[in-house]
């Protein structure tokens, strides 16, 4: 539940989602759900040559289970806070 809450706070920010098939999509985080399914707006594909078909897509829904990474805006992350929260969550507190 920690990352769900965390991503909810990131809504509206620019993120880059990298999928397990190596596709990377940059966009504005529109919404996220408890399974970390992600909806992005104003999307543009980072590697256009590999996935030309994605060029015309502006909004998309990405299944949480295929996400490899979500790259966050550097100033959008309080690392210490996240580190402590992750530690607490893993201990089951």
């Amino acid at each position, binding site marked *: 539940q920690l990352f769900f809450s965390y991503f909810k706070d990131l809504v509206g920010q620019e993120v880059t989602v990298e*999928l397990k*098939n190596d596709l990377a999509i940059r966009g504005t985080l529109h919404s996220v759900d408890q*399974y970390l399914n992600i909806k992005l707006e104003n999307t543009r594909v980072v590697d256009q040559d590999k996935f030309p078909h*994605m*060029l015309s897509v*502006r909004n998309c829904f990405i*299944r*949480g289970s295929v996400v490899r990474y979500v790259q966050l805006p550097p100033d959008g992350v309080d690392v210490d806070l996240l580190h402590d929260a992750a*530690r607490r969550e893993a201990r089951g507190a």
Partner: protein
Amino acid sequence: MVVGLREFALRTGDGSPALDESSGEELMHVQPSVAVALGDRSVESPGTLYITSRKLIWLSDADVAKGYAVDFLSISLHAVSRDPQTYSSPCIYTQIEVVEDEDEEDEDEEESNGVLDLSKIREMRLVPSDSTQLDTLFDVFCECAELNPEPIEEEGEEENGHNWVFSADQMVVGGGGEEDAEWQISQSPTSVIGHSNGDESIAQPMLELQINDQRFDDAEEMVHENETKDH
């Protein structure tokens, strides 16, 4: 559950697809007059799109033996595609997860010897003749994707149920100094406790203590570490 796109030809008397009612599969949306384009192939039409709570089915109107289905669990991504330069008609663009075949070097090869292998299809477009329906279709896809989260694996027989690794120390299998000997006997903290005595009521607080040990190497924790190692 089948990964990827597959053929589907089970129809009921009225032409609609046969659903797996025993598992609670329900029809969510029907969109007539939809063409489908698999991968780089040209579009196939006319057909009808059936969206169920578990999967997406396209049935050809012209050929009753032709149809395709893909579980929402296999749909990695879906989007509305409107740029005429990328594709001639506005459509729903989807990416489909495929079973990775280690032997296959050319991942884009869908056809070999002229036979189309549906399970290798990675992209699929659905082109409704009524493009005003695209946003509705996109929303139905979102809804159905949300209805199909990853199935949760059975929680383990261990009391804590989790198999989280907190530090590299937990992974030590062989070697290491004497102080690691206890860890080598067992593969999880709970069974170390079990070795010392079988009293489960002690296990829980002891487990927490050991998890703390995994996490912190602070000097003040060393006292606790020494205590537990005596057991």
